[in-house]
């Protein structure tokens, strides 16, 4: 048998918890290494500035673009696309997914179709969306919805399928009718799983942003990055990517917080 008292030993023991400072240090270390590697490669001249900007140059680009207000506009344009697309998609996918997981007939009707569509590449639909919808906000929102909706549907259906039949039976013996069982058992019982699904798919919504802004956009972080590519402004490309990552991180934490607040009973 091995000793498990030192934290070093705990680090290499499977499924073993660690003290908080060790966890935080490890998380911080990853960032330090990444930024350190980046700084080393760029400042050290290993990779020319044309391909890899220095961290300082990216910060300078951020300051420069913030000063004339364009960065704020781009950020807002992107947040709008992602949020509208994500919210519209979720508003339909959550109730429909719950029904799909609870009623065999809805599942039979939708599942084969949804499983076909969700493997279609979103990018291949961009030209079609432009043809059908035009080049406005609706087009970009459609890309987000197309990328997220079908995945949400399948994941939420799985959540409601996982609810114990005993819970529903218990509610029947307490006088519930079928409507009560859906509204007062399936819906609340699904809440933690639904929030987890939203959290994961929110991340996907952000990754589809650049695809959405690939063609015919005139603002947004994806547009900013593509425009910068034409001018070889690698610092701006880096900035746009970093901001998308940060916004993703913020929304992720927001969902984590929401989950802890409104579904505290599930922890």
């Amino acid at each position, binding site marked *: 048998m091995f000793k498990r008292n030192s934290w070093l030993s705990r680090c290499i023991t499977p499924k073993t918890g660690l003290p908080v400072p060790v966890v935080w240090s490890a998380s911080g270390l990853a960032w330090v290494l990444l930024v350190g590697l980046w700084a080393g490669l760029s400042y050290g001249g290993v990779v020319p500035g044309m391909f890899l900007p220095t961290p300082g140059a990216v910060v300078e680009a951020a300051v420069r673009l913030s000063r004339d207000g364009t960065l704020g506009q781009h950020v807002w344009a992107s947040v709008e696309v992602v949020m509208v697309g994500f919210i519209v998609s979720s508003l339909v996918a959550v109730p429909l997914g719950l029904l799909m997981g609870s009623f065999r007939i809805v599942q039979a009707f939708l599942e084969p179709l949804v499983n076909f569509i969700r493997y279609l590449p979103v990018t291949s639909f961009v030209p079609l969306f432009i043809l059908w919808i035009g080049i406005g906000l609706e087009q970009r929102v459609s890309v987000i919805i197309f990328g997220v909706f079908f995945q949400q549907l399948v994941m939420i259906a799985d959540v409601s399928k996982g609810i*114990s039949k*005993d*819970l529903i*039976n*218990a*509610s*029947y*013996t*307490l*006088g*519930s009718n079928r409507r*009560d069982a859906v509204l*007062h*058992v399936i819906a*609340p*019982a699904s*809440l933690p799983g639904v929030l987890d699904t939203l959290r994961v798919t929110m991340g996907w919504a952000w990754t589809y942003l650049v695809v959405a802004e690939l063609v015919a956009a005139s603002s947004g972080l994806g547009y900013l990055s593509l425009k910068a590519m034409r001018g070889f402004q690698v610092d701006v490309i880096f900035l746009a990517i970093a901001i998308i990552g940060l916004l993703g991180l913020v929304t992720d934490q927001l969902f984590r917080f929401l989950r802890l607040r409104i*579904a*505290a*009973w*599930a*922890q």
Partner: protein
Amino acid sequence: MGSVTAANRRFIEPVAAPAHAAPRLQVDKVSLRYSKPGGGTFTALEEVSFEVPDQQFAVLVGPSGCGKSSLLYLTAGLAEPTSGEIYVGGQQVQGPGADRGMVFQSYTLFPWLTVRQNVEFGLKRRGMPAARRKEIVDHYVHEVGLSGFADNYAKQLSGGMMQRVAIARALANDPQILLMDEPFGALDSQTRLQMQQLLLRVWGNSKKTVLFVTHDIDEAILLGDRVYVMGARPGRIKQILDVPIERPRTLDMVMERSFIDMKRQIFGLLHDDLEEAH
């Protein structure tokens, strides 16, 4: 305490039924057959008939596969018999309803609701006014000894506590009959003994008709007025035995002569069944 129960009962039964009316539960030639996946049919229950009088504590005991849980689900209306009828309070069972409360073997507390809200669940479905609900909930939460935990969620409760909430939740609805499907099967033996005593006390106060399923012979004798010994393949009632032990029942009665005699008798009946299976 008594007034709460009385108020509660008035709400459900506007006209009190006469005490000498039909038996509380009547199971009439009930059969249940499944088609097996590989073809052929499996007979879970074969023409089972019996009656449970009002206020009786009836226990179904039998080996696994004898259909004892199925009988409970059929009575609850959560499943339909292939043939035969079940009557509760003279009404034929057509589907699930609040007049037949059930305590399940698995923990079925709604984890998003507190203890109080769980007990309140059935009353709310009926649209009972809040003041009346609170009165009834307070009574039953106290009855199962969980007054100090009324605002806790399921994750903060032990298995025994969860089953106590399940009992309170079913009783708060003032059902005609309380169906219990091995409710203490998942508990450790110490907790199980405590729960049996608690159930006897609560039952003594409420005087509900109970149909209790177990495979534990001690539990069957300790709790029941009458024990229905079942056999498997096909599921049927082999023998009905009255428990000759006076109430109140206490734990030390398991050492008494009459208890041990009855235990031996039931064991023999169940053992025959095992022999037949070979």
